[in-house]
């Protein structure tokens, strides 16, 4: 039983982590493509149109990868988490079906039209198709976040005697207080990824002295979008989410902040330290007193319950992983703001394109927004443990009753092998597209 739950969780974690590499880019990128297309419509400068089309190529590769790795996510609700699906399908089935029906269709139909239909449609319609791709991909995020929000903070349901969750109020799924902050935080974080990718490609072109006209455009746009989104991720959206966790999942809040003992006169904020689960304390701690209480409640001496206030089986089952995920996300987010602010300063002083160390930094920073996004999701998901539906349905009660651990291990190994191949092909393809550059090819 224990290793069944372990393999089921590991397979879901592995496949969702790999899957989320792709949508986080496409969601952010679609916004930036719409921006380029809009800029082209206003200025009629061909450069912007080529930029839009170039990034739509990168979008398309990511979209394909997102589709083929996304279908296993939908399937796994049934294959590995059958009991969870049976008990909650009447509720989360709503939002997941809406995602398939509205956003996925919208995105894939209009992506094809954007790529093939420019000459056929004229520029205004072409802009519209780009906008609809953006709308589809953000709507997709909205429905997935609505699903997740219900699992984090269940609303609008009733539980029958046989344990089934029944929908009682449809609109509650979308007015869930967890949803809007989580959605905005997530979407801003995806803009961070796409902005860093764009800036990184720009820095690469400038450093390599190839396609440098586009390099400057990409770097500039990436830096501006990057700074705005990095700030918005932290404040107000990140702050808003942290307050929600403190309010609705206080045990999780204590665990992710690393507060082992409740302090009477206000909680400190931990900057560095390693959770020591044996002695129930942080080793090598560096912390600033009272700041956490102030950030969370705007009161310096407000008491925040530590982990000592909760039963062990109500707390997340992997506290160090949760603590590290959260701190990696926050740490990287802070670095992003710093680097992008610096870059914007030099952009304003018209020096950015010549400062090589900064260009190299921006180029190599590209994996880190991905790591920040994914550790952010780990924070959410590890934080909800040991529950699938917070406070109501335990993870151990959600797995498929008839699938043995040997079968799950077999499919997990298969996914690992297949996704390694996919990842390799993806890199080759994106590398090739970047190398070709945005200048229109001769036929």
């Amino acid at each position, binding site marked *: 039983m224990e290793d069944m739950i372990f393999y089921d969780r590991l397979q879901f974690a592995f496949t969702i982590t790999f899957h989320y590499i792709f949508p986080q880019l496409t969601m952010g990128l679609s916004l930036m493509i719409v921006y380029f297309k809009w800029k082209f419509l206003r200025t009629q400068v061909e450069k912007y149109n080529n930029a839009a089309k170039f990034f739509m*190529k990168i979008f398309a590769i990511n979209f394909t990868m997102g589709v083929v790795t996304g279908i296993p996510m939908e399937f796994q609700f049934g294959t590995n988490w059958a009991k969870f699906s049976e008990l909650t*399908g*009447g509720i989360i089935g709503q939002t997941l079906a*809406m995602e398939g029906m509205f956003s996925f269709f919208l995105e894939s139909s209009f992506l094809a039209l954007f790529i093939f239909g420019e000459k*056929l449609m004229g520029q205004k319609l072409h802009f519209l198709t780009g906008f609809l791709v953006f709308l589809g991909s953000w709507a997709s995020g909205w429905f997935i976040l609505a699903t997740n929000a219900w699992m984090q903070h269940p609303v609008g349901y009733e539980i029958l005697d046989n344990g089934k969750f029944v929908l009682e109020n449809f609109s509650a799924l979308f007015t869930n207080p967890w949803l809007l902050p989580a959605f905005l935080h997530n979407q801003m974080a995806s803009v961070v990824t796409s902005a860093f990718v764009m800036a990184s490609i720009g820095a690469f072109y400038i450093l390599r002295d190839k396609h440098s006209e586009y390099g400057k455009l990409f770097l500039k746009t990436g830096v501006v979008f990057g700074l705005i989104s990095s700030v918005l991720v932290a404040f107000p959206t990140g702050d808003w989410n942290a307050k929600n966790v403190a309010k609705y999942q206080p045990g999780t809040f204590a665990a992710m902040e690393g507060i082992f003992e409740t302090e009477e006169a206000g909680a400190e904020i931990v900057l560095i330290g390693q959770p020591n689960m044996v002695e129930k304390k942080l080793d090598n701690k560096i912390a600033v007193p009272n700041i956490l209480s102030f950030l969370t409640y705007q009161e310096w001496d407000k008491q925040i319950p530590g982990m000592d206030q909760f039963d062990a089986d109500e707390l997340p089952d992997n506290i160090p992983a949760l603590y590290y995920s959260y701190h990696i996300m926050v740490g990287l987010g802070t670095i992003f703001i710093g680097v992008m602010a610096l870059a914007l300063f030099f952009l304003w002083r018209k020096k950015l394109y010549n400062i090589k160390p900064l260009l190299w930094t921006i180029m190599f920073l590209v994996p880190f927004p991905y790591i920040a996004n994914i550790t952010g999701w780990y924070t959410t998901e590890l934080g909800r443990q040991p529950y699938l539906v917070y406070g109501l349905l335990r993870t151990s009660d959600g797995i498929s009753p008839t699938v043995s651990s040997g079968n799950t291990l*077999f499919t997990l190994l298969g996914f690992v092998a297949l996704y390694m191949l996919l990842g390799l092909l993806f890199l080759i393809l994106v590398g090739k597209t970047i190398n070709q550059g945005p200048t229109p090819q001769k036929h």
Partner: protein
Amino acid sequence: MEIFWYIAIGIVLTVFFVLDGYDFGTGIIHLFFAKKEKDKEVITKSAGLFWDSNEVWLVAAGGMLFMAFPTFYASVFSGFYLPLIIVLWLIVFRAIGLEFRGQFKYQMWKDIWDVSFGVSSLLLALFFGIALGNIVRGVNLGGVENGVSAHEGHYFFLPLWDSSFSPLTEHPGVIDWFTIIIGLIAVVTLAIHGANWVILKTNSSINSKLKGVIFKLNITLAVLTLFSLFVWQKVNPNSLDNFSDKPYLMVFPLIYFTGLIGLFFINKIKKDSHAFVLSTLIIVGGITSSLASLFPVILPSVNDTHEHLTIYNTAAESYGLSVALNWAIIGFILLIVYFIVQKRLMGGKVDHMDYGH
């Protein structure tokens, strides 16, 4: 309300098999008949331009099934664990075969992805047929052995095969001689459908030859169909009761046989689109007949201890089903609009369409 969702999901699933069916069929034709590089390229393109927008119908069907019949979704997806995951892997190989083939000009590179596309299409067609075979045959719900249930009555687990390969044992596997026959019917049907698609959408040099291929495949299909009707009686003696109780259901098999008989005249049919309609009728008729033979059952139990899964004992509660109706109607209208817009813009032969670059 259950019936509405049953029909709606049935339609979406049928549309998926008609649309993505031609992609699978194109892969099969590509694997066995395309020899020249020019033909290979254009045949891959006739599937490559459309597969992802066809696959969204699968995602929509999955989502709707999850929402409307969560118990069925949970039972079937966990019970057919291995074949479903293998289908997922094949879908990946099919997709990357189509998407990566044209990326480099080396012949070796193209050969790899041609095989990836062709073989995974063939196996997908086979597996989807086998899945249908499993649904009409039924499974050992509750894992009953000597009258004792191993788990709750709406759960089961099937290994890929049982050493006897027989559908008549107490524990049939996913693959047995009956489901293999249904699998072969699916392969032949989709090969015909794919050949029609290639003829319709391309100017490949094998088009004229493909008509002869369709004729031969059609004979095979007719033989297999009659044989399967015969053995179906053995596997599930009540299989035709629904049709004798409600004679109007005969319209579904009639659709199937219209397509089947019509395609014997493939060489006389002037318009390529008419032939494509006929193979569409075979798919539509085949799926709807199978579903109609079971209705309202959606997964029969082969033991007497546990009742069949029906649309009534697996559905979500009525409030959820009726509130979903509101958004589903809007959704369906949008689907039809997207579909029409897309078909208009991507109509005609694909030979000169620009594929992604």
